[in-house]
């Protein structure tokens, strides 16, 4: 119970932030916020000993029990690791933001409400075992991310970035919901744990692959995989603490989490292995390649995040291969999941610190443009050291943690080529090659990031501010993260035993049941292996390419500027949906009532006549028809002539009089068909109607010249003929196929005995079905009042008063 409530602690705390911001002006609101993640990180840390033994903790709070929807806090190796990352880095980011955001200038309460909302959402995503609540929190991350990116809402670019990220991630989230629903139908449960147990049966289902692809789309959009990564660089308009927190360490890893969580279910499928590994690798290469092109510090980091997420994703794809290999515990395949989680931790540390450094540089110099920066080493020594550590770790150099995970990544990629299922023997060769090339680019942009900013000549005149070292408070968080980067290199196995191995068990339950079984020992030196030579190659080629960067950077200009994914997005969102769809709807939304009526009548006629013939419902039977009398035929002739006159009359008076003639003929019909009350009413009403028409006639304009003779319009005639034919066909079929006797016999029998009347129609109106009459009277009353209102009440031209 309390464990579930912990998910909601941040969002509950958010309720008090406006109070702190408005009432306690002298203290930065961030200090109050800081308590929340600090508490959470301590709370989750207490679970570490238990979870690292391979046990799981679960708590549940029912939400909609009748539908099987509940808030579940399920802590196993994977979710505990994520929870610690979220609360731990959350605390560092809040601390950093206290010095980054000025309490006198910024609307801090908004910022911290969004941030705390996000923290709840993220904790919910990683701890939910129920897919519906998982989706709920998933969308809450999208919403809070939207609010945070658009924090400086008076800037155009912020709003653009916020909109873009929301459209893409919420779109993916919707698809993911579809996948969840399909899965829950197949497995008859919303619980992921229960679904994992029945994974083999699920795989035989026809919709299994559809659910798989839908869920992957959700994960790929959130984790900025190719081709959905385009929102991430634009999300850099957010304040830097947000970029560091959401767009490097936590939210973008929600997709990674999702893939890891669902691996036990989907690993059975070849499609999963190919998509996750393939797209991941493509993203890795694409992101690293384009990171070198960026000129904005945060732009470099954004593309680098994209690329590193691709790396983790590809490792997760390879980890699914282990399912298909016999005795995978003893082969190199076991490394993939381990490397993925290990690199995830490492990435969170070094990327978080790098973002904070980018923020410091921006804060202290006033620009993030790498072309204006340079030579800051002497002025900002601490920032430089942290940046150096982060970048070298990102590049995969010893003695930093990135080196270890990159080695394991290369080990896993090399193993792919040995795999002999799903055509991997042929295409698998590409995996290590692409991975190697991408690593070279990673090396280049890491150097590019740190050395272009901190070495070289200083361009003081180009900088908006006079640069100096950041305040101590701002440096605390990046320094902590950077020291973690080094610490993890020296004590990798402590981290591995406590955090990574339990998570690996959660990802690959088909290999291990207990963390102790994960037989992997991380070592910085593991002999002269192919991986080591690959790393040496990366360093050599990377250094050479970095030295001659200016010479080959021009190749980026060779890419046509119009053929980018961003342009595709702009085209879809602005050109296609805005302009083209608008134009399309304007073609039929003409504003002309005649057009609309034509559509409606044509539609009705087509549907009714079509149904009649498709269902073979048309039938004509002369049985039970009453005989035709000559007087009736005469009456029909009068009616037809009257109608034709009404339609084709040249003047409106003829038209009105002819309509009156039709009405009187109808009342004669009523006489003939034994309906005296109808005949009476029709006669009276027709008289009043004609009088009314004549009244209006006096005030209405003459039929205009253009319509003196109603022009024959083919379309108009066609529509009306179609409707006429429809009515006739329906009337004929209905008359010819009567299956149930009328209930009239009851009325006839009881009209006197029960109701005490003789006129059956009248008794029906006021006794059997008196309610009809009551509301018919109401209709008349309303019509009368409305007419009175229309004539009497006028808005005065100027005042707008009645």
């Amino acid at each position, binding site marked *: 119970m309390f464990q579930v409530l912990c998910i909601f602690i941040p969002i509950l705390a958010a309720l008090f932030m406006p109070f702190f911001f408005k009432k306690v002006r002298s203290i930065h609101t961030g200090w109050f916020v800081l308590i929340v993640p600090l508490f959470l990180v301590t709370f989750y840390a207490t679970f570490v000993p238990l979870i690292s033994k391979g046990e799981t903790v679960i708590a549940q709070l029912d939400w909609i029990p009748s539908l099987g929807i509940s808030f579940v806090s399920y802590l196993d190796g994977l979710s505990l690791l994520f929870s610690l990352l979220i609360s731990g880095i959350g605390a560092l980011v809040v601390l950093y933001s206290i010095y980054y955001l000025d309490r006198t200038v910024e609307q801090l309460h908004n910022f911290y409400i969004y941030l705390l909302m996000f923290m709840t959402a993220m904790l919910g995503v990683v701890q939910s075992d129920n897919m519906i609540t998982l989706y709920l929190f998933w969308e809450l991350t999208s919403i809070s991310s939207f609010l945070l990116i658009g924090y400086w809402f008076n800037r155009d670019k912020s709003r653009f970035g916020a909109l873009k990220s929301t459209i893409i991630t919420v779109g993916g989230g919707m698809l993911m919901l579809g996948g969840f629903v399909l899965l829950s139908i197949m497995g008859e449960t919303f619980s992921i744990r229960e679904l994992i147990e029945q994974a083999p049966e699920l795989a035989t289902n026809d919709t299994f692959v559809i659910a798989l692809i839908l869920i992957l789309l959700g994960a790929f959009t959130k984790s900025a995989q190719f081709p959905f990564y385009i929102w991430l660089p634009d999300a850099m308009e957010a304040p830097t603490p947000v970029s560091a927190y959401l767009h490097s360490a936590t939210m973008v890893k929600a997709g990674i989490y999702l893939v890891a969580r669902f691996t036990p279910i989907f690993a059975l499928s070849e499609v999963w292995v190919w998509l996750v590994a393939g797209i991941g690798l493509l993203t890795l290469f694409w992101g690293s390649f384009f990171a070198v092109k960026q000129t904005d510090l945060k732009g470099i980091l954004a593309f680098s995040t994209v690329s590193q997420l691709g790396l983790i994703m590809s490792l997760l794809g390879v980890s699914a291969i282990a399912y298909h290999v016999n005795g995978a515990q003893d082969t190199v395949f076991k490394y993939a999941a381990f490397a993925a989680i290990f690199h995830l931790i490492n990435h969170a540390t070094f990327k978080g610190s790098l973002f904070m450094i980018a923020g410091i540089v921006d804060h202290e110099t006033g620009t993030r443009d790498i072309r204006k920066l340079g030579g800051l080493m002497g002025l900002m020594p601490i920032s430089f050291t942290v940046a150096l550590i982060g970048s070298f770790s990102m590049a995969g150099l010893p003695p930093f943690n990135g080196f270890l995970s990159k080695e394991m990544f290369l080990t896993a990629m090399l193993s792919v080529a040995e795999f002999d299922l799903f055509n991997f023997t042929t295409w698998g060769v590409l995996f290590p090659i692409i991975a190697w090339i991408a690593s070279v680019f990673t090396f280049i942009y890491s150097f590019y990031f740190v050395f272009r900013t901190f070495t070289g000549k200083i361009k003081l005149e180009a900088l908006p501010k006079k640069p100096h070292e950041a305040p101590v408070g701002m440096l605390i968080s990046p320094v902590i993260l950077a020291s973690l980067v080094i610490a993890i290199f020296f004590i990798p196995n402590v981290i591995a035993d406590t955090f990574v191995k339990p998570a690996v068990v959660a990802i690959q339950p088909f290999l291990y049941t207990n963390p102790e079984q994960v037989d992997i020992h991380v070592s910085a030196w593991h002999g002269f292996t192919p991986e080591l030579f690959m790393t040496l190659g990366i360093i050599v080629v990377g250094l050479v390419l970095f030295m001659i960067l200016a010479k080959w950077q021009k190749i980026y200009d060779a890419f046509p500027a119009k053929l980018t994914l961003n342009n595709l997005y702009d085209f879809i969102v602005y050109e296609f949906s805005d302009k083209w769809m608008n134009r399309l709807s304007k073609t039929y939304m003409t504003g002309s*009532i005649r057009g609309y009526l034509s559509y409606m009548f044509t539609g009705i006629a087509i549907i009714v006549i079509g149904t009649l013939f498709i269902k073979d419902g048309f039938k004509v039977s002369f049985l039970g*028809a009453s005989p*035709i009398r000559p007087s009736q035929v005469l009456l029909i002739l009068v009616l037809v002539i009257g109608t034709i006159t009404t339609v084709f009359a040249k003047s409106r008076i003829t038209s009105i009089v002819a309509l009156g003639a039709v*009405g009187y003929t109808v009342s004669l019909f009523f006489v003939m068909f034994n309906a005296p*009350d*109808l005949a009476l009413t029709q006669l009276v009403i027709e008289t009043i109607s004609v009088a009314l028409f004549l009244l*209006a006639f006096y005030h209405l304009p003459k039929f205009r010249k253009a319509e003196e003779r109603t022009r024959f319009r083919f379309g108009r005639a066609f529509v009306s003929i179609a409707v006429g034919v429809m009515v006739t066909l329906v009337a004929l079929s209905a008359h010819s196929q009567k299956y149930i006797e009328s209930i009239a016999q009851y009325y*006839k029998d009881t009209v006197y005995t029960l109701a005490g009347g003789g006129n059956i129609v009248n008794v029906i109106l006021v006794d059997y079905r008196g309610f009809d009459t009551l509301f018919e009277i109401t*209709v008349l009353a309303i019509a009368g009042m409305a007419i009175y209102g229309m004539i009497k009440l006028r808005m005065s031209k100027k005042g707008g008063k009645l």
Partner: protein
Amino acid sequence: MEILMAFVCGFLFMAAIYLILSRSLLRIIIGTGLLSHGAHLLILTMGSFKGSAPPVLSEGVTDYVDPVPQALILTAIVISFGVTAFFLVLAYRAYQELKTDDMTLMKGSEDHE
């Protein structure tokens, strides 16, 4: 007779729709008038014309026509009258204010949002 009436109703509907699709407001109202005549006759026809006496109790008669459609039509007549009257006055007021009864001109402004 019912077969013949089915054609008559179809014809009334056809004429009514043709008028409703015209430009002049008055013609449209006349069209709705024809439409309600068509509908009323259709209801009556569908109730069938069996029976020879009007549905008013009298000595020695058992062969009454079906009273239910008649009651329905009676209600429908009154309602359609109310609506027609309202519509007419609306047309009259619209012409007074807008100085036109041409439906193609009553489209509102181009860029209404």
